[in-house]
Structure formats: C-alpha cells, structure tokens
C-alpha cells in the first residue's frame, strides 16, 4: 500500500466539502471556490493536484451501474499461494473485473465484476473457473444497507 501523502488544511476542507452536492451550474468551480474564499483557478489547480497525487481517485459522478441495466457482484477465490500471481493475472485480464483485492484469509482474492448486459456475470464466472480450475464464490448483494464514505480527510 502506498504511503499517505501530506495535504494542507484547505485541501482537506475541499475534499470533505465536495463529498457530494457539486453545483450543477455553468461555472461550478467559481461557486465552490467562493465557499473557501479562493479563486476558481486555485480550486481547479488544487483538485488537479489531488487527483494527480492520488488523494482523490476521481472527481465526478458516482453511478449506480445496476440502475443502468448492468449487473455487479462481489466474488471470491481461495487461491493456493504458489499460484497467486498467475491467478491474479488471469482474473485481472477480464475487463469486467473492476476491482481486485488480496486479503489475508483462505478466501484470499476478492474482486468486483461489473457487466453492462444481464447474464454476463455468470459467463465471466464460468470463464474464470474454466481458466483457473478454481471455484468462484459468487456473493452478489441481496440488500444494500449503506454505501458511502463519511471519513474526515
């Protein structure tokens, strides 16, 4: 994991204030900059730096892909240690695999599959099982109680 970088107080205030509620107006950065008493150019530069340094993964809309006709699931594999990198490469090669994390557990590989067409998830899972010879544990969400991040920067 990469080491946390340093940000100044204003950077942190900007990140916290821009959790949501981006103003849908012609000059949104002018409006946001006014909250912090800075100019829109400075705000844009700071956002650009936060994106480039990796403090922000993205700046923009967060889509609910399932509402767009797509499907999403969380899947897990129990990968033998000596095959770990090989299997990671296979799993990551699927464009439908959006995220993939190594975790400390017998279930040591957890990945998110996003597809645009209903029914495609089953095919991706089958393909990964065929290619790896391992069982994929499909854990689609049955209920969503919360999604978001309320951590203070």
């Amino acid at each position, binding site marked *: *994991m990469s080491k946390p970088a340093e940000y100044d107080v204003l950077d942190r205030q900007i990140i916290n204030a821009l959790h949501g509620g981006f103003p849908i107006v012609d000059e949104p*950065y002018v409006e946001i900059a006014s909250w912090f008493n800075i100019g829109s150019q400075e705000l844009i530069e700071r956002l650009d730096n936060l994106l480039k340094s990796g403090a922000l993964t993205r700046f923009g*809309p967060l*889509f609910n892909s399932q509402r*767009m006709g*797509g499907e999403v699931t969380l899947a897990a594999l129990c990968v033998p240690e000596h095959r770990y990198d090989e299997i990671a490469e296979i799993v990551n090669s699927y464009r439908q695999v*959006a995220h993939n994390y190594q975790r400390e557990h017998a279930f040591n590989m957890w990945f998110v599959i996003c597809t645009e067409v209903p029914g495609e998830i089953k095919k991706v899972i089958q393909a990964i099982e065929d290619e790896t010879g391992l069982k994929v544990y499909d854990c689609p969400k049955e209920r969503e109680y919360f999604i978001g991040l309320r951590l203070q*920067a």
Partner: protein
Amino acid sequence: MKSIKKIDTEIDEIDRRIVFATQKGIPLVERPFDAIAKQVGITANEIKYRLEVMLDNGIIRRIGAVPNHYHLGYVANGMSVWDVDDDAVDEFGEIIGTLDYVSHCYKRPRHLPVWPYNLFAMIHAKTRAEVEEKAAAIATILEGVCRNHEILYSTRILKKTGLRLFNTPK
C-alpha cells in the same frame, strides 16, 4: 428546468453518452458542462437537466470527490463478515450501516459450509487495532443474533478501475 421531469428511471442513448463522457470525471475547466456538451453533442442546458434527473432517480448516487482512503491515512481496511440470523439481518444491517466508519454494508449469500457469513461491513481506520475496536463495537450491537465473525484485511490492491462502460455508445 425540472418541469418535464422524467418518470422512468431507464437511461437512454443520450444519458449513456453522458455517462461515458463523465465516468472518468467532471472536466476541471471553468465551464465543465460546456465541455461535456461538446463531447456529447447536445446543449449544456440539456446536460445539466439530465444530470439532475439522474441524481433525482438514483442513477447517479452523487457528484463529488471520491477520496482514496489510503492516501488520507486510513490505511487499515478490514472487510468484516458476520454470520447473522436470517430474520435479524435486515434490522441489524440498517443499524450497522449508520456507523460512520462503515463504508459499505451489504447482505450477501452464504456458501455453506465453507462460508457462513451473510452480512458484510467494510471498516476503515488508521490502524488494525482501531479496526479491531470498531469490530468489537459491532459485535456488541450484534450480540445474541450473530454466531461468528471474521475480519479480512486487504494486503494488496490487484486492480482498481472506476470504469463502467467499455465502449463508446453507438
């Protein structure tokens, strides 16, 4: 602008173009909706209207900053998983979802006998000790309805992409 509010929540081809144009982010220019409009081929006013509609009906969860929690110092990321009574999981899932250190809280299927857990709560903290503390707090909340739990720490990001649409819309 919202006088002709759309009722259906399906997205059409123009919405898909907007999704495609903005999935990497809102342009960091003075008039970002003009820039998106140019790419999509409609007016900035229609872009703004359609974004409002998609926000209203939940196709867009929010528009804003997506922080990388590792870079913010939240380096301990524990996926806590819980074996909760089926008839209690909804009630308690809602409660655990309100905790401010839980970023995702879902009910998922068990895979018996190897995977008995049906409630997933992602815990973010600055140290593993802090994750353990927060998990202990959740365990207290679930006392009497939960048989067992584990925390799966992430040790490596193998892949991470925010992209959802892969092809330029027709």
